[in-house]
């Protein structure tokens, strides 16, 4: 493995000079988003700087309970972000989304870290945190798309749901097309990404590993494993989110409860 070439802070600051190009273009075309760009840039730097300090400390401690606590925080932040973005009432969805997120993390980490990479210490911060973070980060986006499709479908096509509920006499059959649609819409972007990976995009994790000194072959093997873990994790998380949410979405008569979606 080659030595990692560090970027010193002055050089990193020089990197910000490149931002003058998009800012000049925004000014030229009178696109009034410069304050938003500057604020998000500042937020990105502060958030990542803080994460660097946390992670340095967490990696140094490398305690199972601290690492698990960090993952729990990631799950909870992801849940609240999903609920807000989908426009759901958080009181009804925190529990099902939490159970779905936690279950998918346990299954994926247990399988890929325990059986595929065969870590001696499953909670090793260097593997446990970034791999779980990648799964959760991807699940968040795909869950938002899938769950939005699901609840939008149910609320906009409720006549069809009630038609199917009586005529099939079975809530599983009545919901099947809504669930299938949600899974399809949720996973479609991931399928598209997998099919072109390496051709028109080089994934960030693999690039990071190569820049960090790993051989491209090792980086690619990790990337393949990560894509598998992301796809399996996203599918499990989305399906479980739907299944567990159903217990809170319908009343004992199978009717969609009022107030599931926040009034926009």
């Amino acid at each position, binding site marked *: 493995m080659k030595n990692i070439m560090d970027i010193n802070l002055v050089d990193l600051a020089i990197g910000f000079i490149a931002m003058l190009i998009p800012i000049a273009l925004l000014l030229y075309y009178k696109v009034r988003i410069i304050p938003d760009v500057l604020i998000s840039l500042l937020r990105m730097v502060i958030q990542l700087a803080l994460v660097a300090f946390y992670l340095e400390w967490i990696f140094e401690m490398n305690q199972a309970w601290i690492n698990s606590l960090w993952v729990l925080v990631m799950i909870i932040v992801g849940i609240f972000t999903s609920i807000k973005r989908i426009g759901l009432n958080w009181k009804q969805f925190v529990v099902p989304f939490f159970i779905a997120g936690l279950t998918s993390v346990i299954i994926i980490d247990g399988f890929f870290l325990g059986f595929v990479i065969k870590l001696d210490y499953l909670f090793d911060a260097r593997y446990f945190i970034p791999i779980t973070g990648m799964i959760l980060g991807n699940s968040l986006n795909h869950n938002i798309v899938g769950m939005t499709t699901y609840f939008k479908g149910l609320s906009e096509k409720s006549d069809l749901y*009630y038609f199917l509920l*009586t*005529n099939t*006499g079975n809530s599983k059959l009545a919901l099947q097309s809504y669930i299938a649609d949600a899974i399809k819409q949720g996973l479609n972007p991931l399928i598209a990404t997998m099919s072109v990976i390496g051709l028109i995009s080089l994934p960030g994790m693999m690039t990071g590993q190569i820049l960090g000194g790993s051989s491209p072959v090792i980086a690619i093997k990790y990337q393949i494993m990560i894509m598998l873990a992301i796809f399996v994790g996203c599918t499990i998380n989305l399906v479980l989110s739907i299944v567990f949410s159903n217990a809170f979405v319908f*009343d004992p008569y199978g009717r969609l409860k009022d107030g599931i979606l926040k009034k926009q």
Partner: protein
Amino acid sequence: MIKCEHVSLSFQDKRVFDDLNFEIESGANASVSGESGKGKSSILKLLQGYILPDTGTISINGAKLSARSINQIRNSIAWIPQNINLPVHTGIKLMHLLGISERKESVYSFLDKLGLEEELLHADFQKISGGQKQRIVISICLSLDREIILMDEPTSSLDDASIQLLINAFKTLSNKTILSASHNHAWIKNSNQVIEL
């Protein structure tokens, strides 16, 4: 048998009906009639548990409608709604959603009775008339062979000739309890029980 005892229903303080009582014997062909807004469609939704009464009880084939009995009750009902604008593109797709085999003979038999070619099951609902679409949905729902058939305005998109075909087709159904909400005189006249709201 469908039994409605002392049923009252209101929506947001507006009373729809009060102390409604009726009984429909098994095998009867009943119609609910009345002006718009009198609650004809609401009765059909009450019987399926989609709206619940303020007071009173509803029983179907001896089972009192409740959260516990609702699946058993729905399993005895074929529901043909008024809004045929279901977000489905073809009859075949609708059959898939209902778990009906594409080869189910009774669908073709009902289509024939209602004056339609079986090829229409593959036709895009947007490209056929409202009457054809309504008859396709009715044929598919009748093929479910449920004991009770609930229909909301089954003739709303049909011309006189098609209404007559529908009346004739329903005469061939035996041992079915039919309840429909309708404005159509010919359809109501064909019923052997009318519940006036």
